[in-house]
Structures are given as structure tokens and as C-alpha cells.
């Protein structure tokens, strides 16, 4: 999809020393190297300095939240940065049961599980057909899907609320699953179409010659071959759907149906009246830890999944 304005090999900006350019005389070279070396050392100190500062800025708020979740309410207000006087695990159990974190977790698991499977299935079906078959309207349908990526979702949410209401899907988990799938399709179709195009055609043709139907070829030959792409886009969608806030805030407002992120926000509002800040922090940390742990374990795949097609 990227266009090349000039069909050239290695066009460089004027004055750029890159490329095979003018030969460097041997007299200049050692001097240049020496200064570069000295510069490298100072730069090394400087770069470590700024990099460490940002690392601290990223980690401190998270550590602060973990620390706070083990404190008493009184300690939270009097000394925000001191270590907790003991590990108050009762904050965590209060958050899990009384503050309904267990319900929010279960709802999120159900919704994300259902919509992730649906997104991958529907996304790969549509992408496969769009990538591999020529038929009238192919381009139109493709761009219809892709267009959804840059449109502000909030604009569609106002009528969508009433569409859902009329279909009795408002405030239901299965309704939320359908909406998650629909709004995940643009990126999924975009990513997987590009992926299916890169797969060799010969294997599918061989299966077809052997008498497999199109459907069977897709499920038994193409999907296994597309596994790396499915994993990348699956991770991308998992995080997006697990962390989703806007859609459930509008379409799923019943207290006992809430998912994690909106449940926590509601918790923050209601704890403001009850004054149970330690319980709220326990809830926050509880919601953060599984995702962070999963990220650290599957670090390579997560980074690949999130950056692979996010900016294309």
C-alpha cells in the first residue's frame, strides 16, 4: 500500500554522506574516529541518564499503586509514599468480594473470550475471500471494512445505542460480544488480508485438486498456515477488547453486567462515598497485574502483535 514516488535505487537527500558516495581520504579517518569515540562516551552517560529517568517515571506510578493497595486508608492519606506498615491483604479480599471485582473479571472473561473467537473466525473468513478471490465488489467491500479504522466510533454510538435497544441487545453480554466483533473487524480484516496475500497459492490449489472443497481448504489448509498472523492479530484484539472502555460505558450500563475497566471506574465513584480507598487500589492492582504478567511472559509476541500492523 505504500507508493514509491520515484522508482530509484537508494535516492539520498543532497549532502547526505550515506551510500557509496565520495571516497574518504585516509588522513581524515582516524581523527574523525577519535572525536567520535570521545563523543560516544559522554553521549553514553547522557543517554543512560535520560533513559533511566523515563524508566523510573513509568515504573513509579505502578509501584506506588501496588504499595498503596496494601496500606490502611489512614496511611494512604497521611503518608502517600511511605511503605505499608504491614501487608493488609484484607484490602484485596474486600475488593474481590464486596466490590464485585470477581464479577467484573468473570464478565470480562466471557465477553473477551466470545468476541476474540468471533473476531478471529469472521475476520479470517472475510479476509481470506477478499485476499484470494476475484469477484465484482471485492475492492468496494475491502474499503468498506478498512474505512472503519479512521472513523470516530462515538459518532456511530448514538444511533447504535437505539439499534441495540430495539433488538433487546442493550445491557447483555452477548450483545456486547457482537459489537466488539463488529468494531474489531476493520483492523483484523485489513491485517489478515495482507497476510493471506503473502501465503503461497500452490498449497491451496493442491488441496483443491485433491478434491477438498473451498471451505475445507480454508479450515484445514489455510488457517493452519496463517497461524503466525492469527496470533499477532489475536494479541492485538485481546488487549484492545480486554481494555475496552468506550463501548461498554455506552452500551452496557447495568451494574452486575459491567466489565473490568468500567467496573473500576464505577468503583472509584462509589468508593468516594464509602471512603474505601485501599479497597479501590487493591482492585486497580488486581486488574493491572494479570495483563502485566502476561505481557512480561509473552513479551516478544505481544510487542510483535501490537506493532506489526498497528501503523501501516
Amino acid at each position: 500500500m505504500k507508493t514509491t514516488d520515484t522508482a530509484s535505487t537508494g535516492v539520498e537527500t543532497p549532502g547526505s554522506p550515506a551510500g557509496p558516495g565520495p571516497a574518504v581520504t585516509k588522513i581524515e579517518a582516524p581523527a574523525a574516529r577519535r572525536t567520535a569515540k570521545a563523543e560516544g562516551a559522554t553521549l553514553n552517560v547522557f543517554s543512560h541518564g535520560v533513559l533511566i529517568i523515563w524508566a523510573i517515571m513509568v515504573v513509579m506510578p505502578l509501584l506506588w499503586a501496588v504499595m498503596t493497595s496494601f496500606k490502611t486508608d489512614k496511611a494512604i492519606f497521611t503518608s502517600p509514599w511511605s511503605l505499608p506498615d504491614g501487608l493488609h491483604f484484607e484490602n484485596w479480599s474486600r475488593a474481590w468480594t464486596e466490590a464485585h471485582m470477581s464479577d467484573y473479571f468473570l464478565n470480562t472473561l466471557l465477553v473477551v473470550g466470545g468476541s476474540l473467537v468471533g473476531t478471529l473466525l469472521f475476520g479470517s473468513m472475510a479476509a481470506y475471500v477478499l485476499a484470494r478471490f476475484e469477484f465484482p465488489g471485492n475492492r468496494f467491500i475491502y474499503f468498506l471494512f478498512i474505512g472503519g479504522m479512521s472513523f470516530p466510533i462515538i459518532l456511530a454510538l448514538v444511533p447504535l445505542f437505539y439499534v441495540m435497544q430495539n433488538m433487546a441487545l442493550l445491557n447483555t453480554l452477548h450483545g456486547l460480544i457482537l459489537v466488539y466483533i463488529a468494531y474489531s473487524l476493520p483492523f483484523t480484516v485489513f491485517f489478515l488480508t495482507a497476510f493471506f496475500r503473502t501465503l503461497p497459492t500452490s498449497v491451496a490449489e493442491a488441496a483443491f485438486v485433491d478434491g477438498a472443497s473451498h471451505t475445507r481448504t480454508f479450515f484445514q489448509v489455510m488457517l493452519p498456515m496463517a497461524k503466525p498472523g492469527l496470533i499477532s492479530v489475536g494479541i492485538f484484539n485481546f488487549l484492545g477488547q480486554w481494555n475496552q472502555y468506550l463501548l461498554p460505558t455506552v452500551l452496557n450500563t447495568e451494574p452486575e453486567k459491567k466489565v473490568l475497566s468500567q467496573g473500576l471506574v464505577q468503583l472509584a465513584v462509589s468508593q468516594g462515598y464509602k471512603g474505601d480507598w485501599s479497597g479501590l487500589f487493591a482492585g486497580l492492582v488486581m486488574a493491572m497485574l494479570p495483563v502485566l504478567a502476561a505481557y512480561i511472559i509473552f513479551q516478544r509476541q505481544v510487542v510483535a502483535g501490537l506493532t506489526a500492523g498497528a501503523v501501516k
Partner: protein
Amino acid sequence: MQHGKYRFIVGFLAAPLALYALFVIWPFIQSIYYSFTDWTGLSPDFTMVGFDNYSRMLDDEIFWKSVQHSLTFAVVLPLVTVGLALFFAFMLNVGGRRRGGAAIAGVRGSSFYKIVYFFPQVLSIAIVALLFQFAYNPNSGAINSVLKAVGLGSIQPDWLGDPDLALICVMAVLVWSTVGFFVVLFSAGMASIPRDFYEAALLDGANRFTTFFKITLPLLWDTVQSGWIYMGILALGAESFAVVQIMTVGPNGGGPDFSTIVLPLYVYQKAFRDGQAAYATTIGVALLIVTLAFAAIVMKVGRRERLEF
């Protein structure tokens, strides 16, 4: 490959397309239609009112405030985030001590930094917003107590409660949560730039800054430009809604004296709080226009000759 081809195509496209049309395309079309009506959302009755909503919008002071804030987000956030991320990525990949005769080297432990920087990216923006709401708390928050601890006890800003600071506080949170993503993205791009380009530049006596502006940036331009658009769309859309809605409450929502209200939040308030669904869709259409204009401008301004290597 012709056997049963069309039946297969229809069979595979029907379900995804139906779902997408019903929940995404149809509401979009409807919302543009509704912006010309007086629909409240509360009752099914409405009449066509032409451009009434649009002329009302142009006279709406809060609408203009939202436009101003959303535009600030779309300009400042990509600038700061992409700028910081480029700086960090350059430090990670080129800022290291030279080892074993290599022209350039990344800093030691660069993979550790990348792992840590990416943390906020996997967290829900709602959780991040909640966390910082507490950190910004003027009395017991983490930030003001750090200021006290380092002897700046006299400076105790009201942060989110201060109309002059609230918007900056909100933007800082979005920067905090997205920089890591771009650092990783740009690092990957920088790693694919051939080493001999740097070798040649250093031999010619170029320092690191020249190297960055003459080699790294031009070769990374495509990634930077798409990152810019990606960040801008985030800043105009759902992410800005979440941070502003969660962090700045105020009596009307959108911060003290509407100091942080953004377009998506204003749409939400009009539709689901004030029962003015038609007017909400009108503001939504304005948001759509702003988003498309933003993407078009970035692509136009950022258009350069593509460098191949």
C-alpha cells in the same frame, strides 16, 4: 477453482459483512441523517429541521471549547509523543558506547528499557486514568507529596482542579501511556537501517545530531508519519474520551469551567445525559470532519520522496 466459487464467497462474507453493516455502517449513516432532525433519543418521534442543529452548533460556546481542546490534543500530543519517542529510540539504538569497532552501538540493557517503556501500553486507559487521578490529588496524591519531600512544599498545585493546568495534566497522562509504544516501533525501524550508513557518516566527521537528522529521520520518515496519524486519531477519539471523562469530573463533567471538555465527551454528554441525540450526532459529524481533515493535512504536509534502502 471455479467450482462453487460464488456460493463459497457469499457463504464466507455473509456473516461478517452483516454484522459489520448492522453495528458499524448503518449507525454511521443513521447518525448523519439524524443530525438534520430534532430527535431527542427519548421518544421515537422526530421531524426534519434542516440545518438548525448546525447553526445552533456554530453558536455553541462549549462546542467551540471542545473543538479547541480536541485540536490542541491532535497537534500537541503527536508532537510531544513522537518527539520524545524518537529521542528515546535514538538514544537506545545509537547512544551507546562504541564497542569492538562498530560505528554505532545501542546502550547496554536496551531491551530492558524497551520492556519497561511498553508497560503502559498493555494497561487499559481507564485504569491509567484512575491511577493518575489519585496521583494528581492535591492533598494526598503522589505528585504533591514528592514535591513536599524534595523541599518544594510551597508549590502544591491543584492539578486537575485548576482550570489552567487541568488540560495539560490530562495530556501528560496520554503522553505517559503512549510513548513506550512508539519507542518500540521506532527502534524496530532504526534497527533495520544499514550500519554502513552510520559508518560512512562518522567517517565523514558527522556528529550524532547530524546523523540523526540526515540519516535516521529521513529513512524513518514513513513510520514517523503513520505514527503521527495514528496518535492524532487516538487523541481525537476514544482515548481522549476516557481520560477526560474519568479524570476531570467537575460539576458539568469536562473539568472545572469546561477546561478539559473534548469533542467525543461532548457528544456523549449531549446524547446520553441531556437527551439531545440529534444535536449529539451533529457534533459527532463535526468530529468526523476534524478527524478526516487532520489525516489529510498530515499526509499532505508529510509527503516526501520515499527513500529506499
